[in-house]
């Protein structure tokens, strides 16, 4: 649930509040790519998808535009979208969940219908779609992250307290035969969005990389330019593939400031700013989409491997993207604080209440209502 509570506007409609996005080669089928969108963090048993929201997966083939310190991606203008929409529920299932139906419009213009919570989902010509309530695969200790930021010292305990232990999300998982459904590749950029449906859909939120808005952009106190600016709603309203110049510098300055804070926590500088005054990760992180190489075999821990390889001037070896079970908070604190030049940082949480599986629909079944309280 890395993106939960990512902006005041998203707060007003939990079914439009994206928590996480994942993209990985299917562990059970090398010809398939899997995309997962999680929403509605800490969802109670009655949570359902909104009938007024389009849940959109945007996929663009991309190339590596530059390697080394100037590393950058070059996304194509060609785009493939999957749009999922939902009906108003009618009645209750045996498990007392509201019965809801949905459909997914594929890039080829075909519509796949499915029933929410049905683990088989809907299937059509190389695409399988699941939507329903599942266990939140993300795990972190929010209190210790906040304390770390407040004190400027790593505050994680050997055994932390998982803020999301036993909680559920609404999830949509799409498994697609990428060579058949998409053109180009094998490198793809993935962004998920929620949009208010209508003649001209309006973007409510967008998420690509994990923990950009919360861990990386939200802290205001280190930003010497826009200390009062709640930046996340502005950021949400931007097109991930076409960030307008109006606020770009605000995002850049905020990210530089916050990344510098993290880098300084251990008392040494692992990420000296470049000649333009930017943190070396800023440009890559503001390219806020998951980058996955669909031709590579599934890997458990491959998030950001493509980007790190680019910075080091070498060819990547993994699919990159993001797998459901990856210990992201350990990874990101290690990346930001010591750049991998020192022992990994452990936040004291090493797994969720239930691991995701390697078969469709991948995410673990929802936890019983009492699990979180226990």
């Amino acid at each position, binding site marked *: 649930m890395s993106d939960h509570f990512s902006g005041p506007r998203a707060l007003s409609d939990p*079914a439009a509040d994206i928590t996480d996005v994942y993209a990985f080669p299917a562990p059970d089928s090398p010809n398939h790519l899997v995309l997962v969108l999680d929403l*509605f963090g800490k969802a*109670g048993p009655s949570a359902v998808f909104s009938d007024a929201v389009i849940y959109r997966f945007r996929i663009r083939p991309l190339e590596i535009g530059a390697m080394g310190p100037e590393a950058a991606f070059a996304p194509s203008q060609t785009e493939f979208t999957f749009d999922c929409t939902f009906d108003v529920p009618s009645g209750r299932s045996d498990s007392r969940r509201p019965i809801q139906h949905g459909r997914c419009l594929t890039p080829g213009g075909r519509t796949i219908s499915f029933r929410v919570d049905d683990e088989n989902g809907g299937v059509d010509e190389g695409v399988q779609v699941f939507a329903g309530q599942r266990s939140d695969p993300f795990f972190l200790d929010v209190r210790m992250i*906040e304390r770390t930021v407040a004190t400027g010292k790593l505050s994680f305990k050997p055994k932390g307290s998982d803020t999301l232990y036993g909680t559920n999300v609404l999830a949509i998982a799409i498994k697609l035969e990428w060579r058949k459904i998409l053109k180009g590749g094998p490198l793809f950029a993935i962004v998920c969005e929620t949009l*208010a449906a209508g003649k001209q859909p309006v973007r409510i939120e967008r998420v690509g990389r994990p923990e950009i808005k919360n861990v990386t952009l939200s802290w205001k106190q280190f930003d010497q330019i826009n200390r*009062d600016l709640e930046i996340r709603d502005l950021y949400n309203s931007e097109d991930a593939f076409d960030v307008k110049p109006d606020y770009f510098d605000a995002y850049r300055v905020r990210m530089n400031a916050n990344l510098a804070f993290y880098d300084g926590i251990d008392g040494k500088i692992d990420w000296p700013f470049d000649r333009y005054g930017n943190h070396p990760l800023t440009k890559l992180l503001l390219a806020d989409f998951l980058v996955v190489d669909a031709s590579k075999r599934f890997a458990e821990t491959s998030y950001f491997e493509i980007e790190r390889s680019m910075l080091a001037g070498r060819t990547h070896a993994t699919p990159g993207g993001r797998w459901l079970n990856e210990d992201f908070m350990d990874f990101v604190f290690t990346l930001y604080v010591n750049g991998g030049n020192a022992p990994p940082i452990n936040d004291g949480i090493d797994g969720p209440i239930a691991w995701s599986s390697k078969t469709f629909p991948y995410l673990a079944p929802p936890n019983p209502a009492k699990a979180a309280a226990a």
Partner: protein
Amino acid sequence: MTGLSKISAPAVWPAASPPTLTDGTIALLNLQAQIDGLEGHSTTGEATALIDLLILRGLILGRISDYERAAQLADRLVEHADTDAAVYVARARTRAVFHRFTEALDDLDQADRISPQDIAAKRERAAILQALGHYDEALVTYGTVADRAEQFEQAAALAGFWAERGETETAQRSYLESLRSYRGVSPFPLVLLDFQLGLMWMRQERLNEARTCFATAIARVPAYAAAQGHLAEAEADLAEPEVAVARLIPLATSSDDPDYAAQLARILGEMGRNDQASGWCRLAANRYDELIAAHPGAFADHAAEFWLGTGKDPRKGLRLAEFNLRVRKTPRAYDLLAQALEANTAGAASAHCSGAHLPSRAEI
């Protein structure tokens, strides 16, 4: 009225197209899911969110028990996180719900000391000043956050402000601006606005306009109890008492707010169905007494209206109207007191005998 020209709506607005909103049934399921998911909350932010959600559900479903729960949570939260401005703002909200305005303002003072630029605290203060009838101060306070507030929130606050003042044209303009600037899909912020506008028309005795507003709110969220209740009131006044009774019976049966039973008793009495009316009247009377004992400031005005009318105890109504005026000196509070004095034969002498110091309406 100072500062008004800078923040009120311009003269001409394009018509707002109907916004795309989540179905009201889904919104309510998800409100329940949010509350369930935050039970056993682990952070202060989640606790304040839970308080806000309970207040929202209380507003929509007319559940006083939700307000009471929110107030208990807020008290506990302040004990455990007394250096966080947000917890004082959250408690101020719960206190304002129960019309404990002085204590609510104390909380906001504390929030200001911790975080002087807190927009939520300033907006809450403006709403309380408005509730207290300090309209000029409220308007100035709304103005202080105008630059930093979301456009919708600011327009919505002003729509509510002008609706309460009875400035129908300005309220409508702000209402349209709210609709135009709304970027969310949750129906709740809009139904609260529809309701405010409906109340404005009721006070102006423009019943058809009121009915339209309440019906709009109900179309968006069918379970919105207060809108159902006021729609029934408008229907009864528009000579459709049977429709009103059918609308009120489920509300009066399920809600812990006695307003619906009181309303039902009044309409049934006017229809000559006195046997039925007396049962609902007893139910309302007992519940008002319980609520006045627990939350006197919050229910003094509605209880006074009840005792002056269907409850047929004008002396009790007068005591409550006097108390209500001490809580907040709004035009409505003065009107209620005037009504109470008229209902009691001693008139102004009653006010004098009560020992209350009642400033004249001209002083506000």
